[in-house]
């Protein structure tokens, strides 16, 4: 019953999305004409269309990515087809949308797979149809047919979060501490990689810290809030929380604020939502690990265009974009630069 609900929701949502993104496609239509005049070296002489299939529209991370994608597409004169589920980050809703997009026969597909195994078939299907595929942020298991994989360094991000958390807790040798991790999805490779980076760093550098629980909130900040509420009850000696993404950071910070435990619990989050960046000043959030989603999108589009126009492969199969740490020592100017913006 749940599956058919979701499929129906996808149908309705895709219809709405088609309407709303129709706006962004028309923005590029005039540049498509100029690009036809400009480019002499286009492989087939057809206008290049790139389908960008992201995770969940409602996530500011992907909104920021959209800004970068639209800028780059306009600059290079290619058509951008921006698609994805409006709110749910899951393979069940993503796969039908990928299928629908493939039917449009784009030149290239930038895919943010919500599950490394489940989306493999879709990638293979696209490659078989002659479409160039790039993975961004998350990846499928088998990258052999994928042009390139561009991601933030999630492992490093998790490790940096561990450092920030340990620092705020005031880690001292020989003492015991309890921390928890609020994550969104057990399958998203980003979440997994950050968790791994975090866990490894803790084990390596901070053996006195015990990760007592990891819970999943399905990108719903209210659920993240619920998880924190229950943890605060179960672990009265809890020292810190690692919120693995933006929605978790939003929900966790609200829960801590409501219980008045701002100065007692250290909270390190991920993704620079403007609301959460503001909480760094008040001390509610110790640090945020920020990525550069716009840059990731730009590189992805560039890679496809280069391949189509010049037949050139990108330098490396995997491109890792470094993270930035935003904390109380970050300058106001830098805070502004790295805060995720949307249209």
């Amino acid at each position, binding site marked *: 019953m749940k599956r058919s609900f979701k499929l129906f929701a996808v149908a309705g949502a895709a219809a709405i999305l088609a309407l709303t993104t129709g706006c962004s496609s028309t923005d590029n239509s005039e540049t498509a004409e100029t690009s036809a005049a400009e480019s002499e070296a286009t492989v087939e002489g057809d206008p290049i269309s790139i389908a960008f299939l992201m995770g969940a529209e*409602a996530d500011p991370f992907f909104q920021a990515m959209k800004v970068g994608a639209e800028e780059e597409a306009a600059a290079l004169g290619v058509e951008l087809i921006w698609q994805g589920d*409006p709110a*749910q980050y899951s393979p069940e809703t993503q796969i039908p949308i990928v299928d629908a997009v493939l039917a449009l026969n784009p030149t290239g597909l930038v895919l943010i797979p919500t599950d490394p195994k489940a989306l493999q078939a879709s990638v293979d299907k696209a490659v078989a149809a002659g479409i160039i595929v790039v993975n961004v942020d998350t990846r499928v298991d088998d990258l052999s047919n994928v042009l390139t994989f561009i991601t933030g360094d999630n492992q490093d991000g998790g490790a940096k979060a561990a450092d920030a958390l340990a620092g705020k807790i005031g880690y001292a040798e020989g003492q015991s501490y309890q921390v928890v991790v609020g994550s969104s999805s057990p399958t998203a490779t980003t979440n997994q990689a950050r968790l791994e980076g975090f866990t490894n760093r803790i084990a390596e550098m901070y053996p006195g810290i015990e990760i007592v*629980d990891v819970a999943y909130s*399905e990108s719903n*900040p209210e659920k993240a809030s619920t998880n924190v509420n229950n943890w605060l*009850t179960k672990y009265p000696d809890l020292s810190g929380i690692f919120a693995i993404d933006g929605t978790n950071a939003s929900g966790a910070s609200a829960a801590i604020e409501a219980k008045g435990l701002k100065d007692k619990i250290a909270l390190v989050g991920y993704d620079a939502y403007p609301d959460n960046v503001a909480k760094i000043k008040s001390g509610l959030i110790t640090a945020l690990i920020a990525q550069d989603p716009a840059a990731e999108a730009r590189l992805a589009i560039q890679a496809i265009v280069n391949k189509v126009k010049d037949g050139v492969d990108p330098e490396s199969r995997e491109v890792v974009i470094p993270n930035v740490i935003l904390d109380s020592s970050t300058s106001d100017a830098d805070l502004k630069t790295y805060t995720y913006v949307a249209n």
Partner: protein
Amino acid sequence: MKSISSRLRPHVGRRRLRALASNQSAILVGVLIVLIGVFSALEPKFFSVATAGNILTDWGSVVLIAVGMTYVIISGGIDLSVGAVVGLSSVTAAWTMATVLGVGQDVQGSAAYGTMLVGAVVSVSVGALVGLINAFLINKLHIAPFIATLATMGACLGFSVIISTGMPIGSANDFSLIAPIDSSYVPFSWAVVAVIMVVTILGFFLHKARFGLYTYAVGSNAFATRVAGINVERQRTKVYVLSGALAGLAGMYVYIRLGAGSPSSGNGRELDAIAAAVIGGVALSGGVGTILGTVLGTLILFTVQSGLIMVGLAPDWKKVVVAVLIAAAVGAQSLRRGGGSQP
């Protein structure tokens, strides 16, 4: 072929079972007690005022839409848009407070009340407006409620993302409204108290007033209701507007919880509301259901959720437990109907 005597005399054991199944609320309370017992045995900290507070905080937002859903399903319809309305109303209220009124997150405590009142009015109005649209689609365009509300659900999700640009919008708030009044003894927060008052009033209206009676009548036999001189379309409109308005109220509740309006805050809540109502004894075919049942059903849902987190079990178990409860509830219902003549 059974003997005549055995056909005339229903099995005694079955009759006893049916009588037991008839006392719906008693069973639900029993299930609740069993759940609390099991979870407390596995994790002693579960049995605490703090946990009760956590459960009630979660219960507060969903019970509002579950009550609305109860009215709608009793009237013979369904409203799949309520989750998306929570997100949309929350975001619109936050946008009004932050952008139109220009009030920032720095305004906290009782200074925020004036602004929040405006936000609440906006939130409820947005929900009521969506309800009006649902009623129009169903009454005038004769679209089946499942399809009509699925469409508005998609539209609301889309608008949520457009208004919020995918990011949570923060504004003035008073987090003490969502915190337990006295964390040692009183698990209720003022927000929860307000919700209880709203739910109680709606309970009286459903069971003691004409509005509730007509709701049952329409769901039981729309034709008989019409020829009795009652305006069936007007009754349906009122019910869908109520459902939307309650979702809007829930949107404000979630805003208070998060200190921000977040587009993904209502994700999946419509299914939670339906599950809660069904566990509480509502029949999807219409004409059957009680407010007390829904209240208890919602309570059971969140007792399970909190319990699983406290006990440390994966959240996927919640889905299994909920599925079992739904099956049991539907089974009890057919048991109750088994003896009498079929409508």
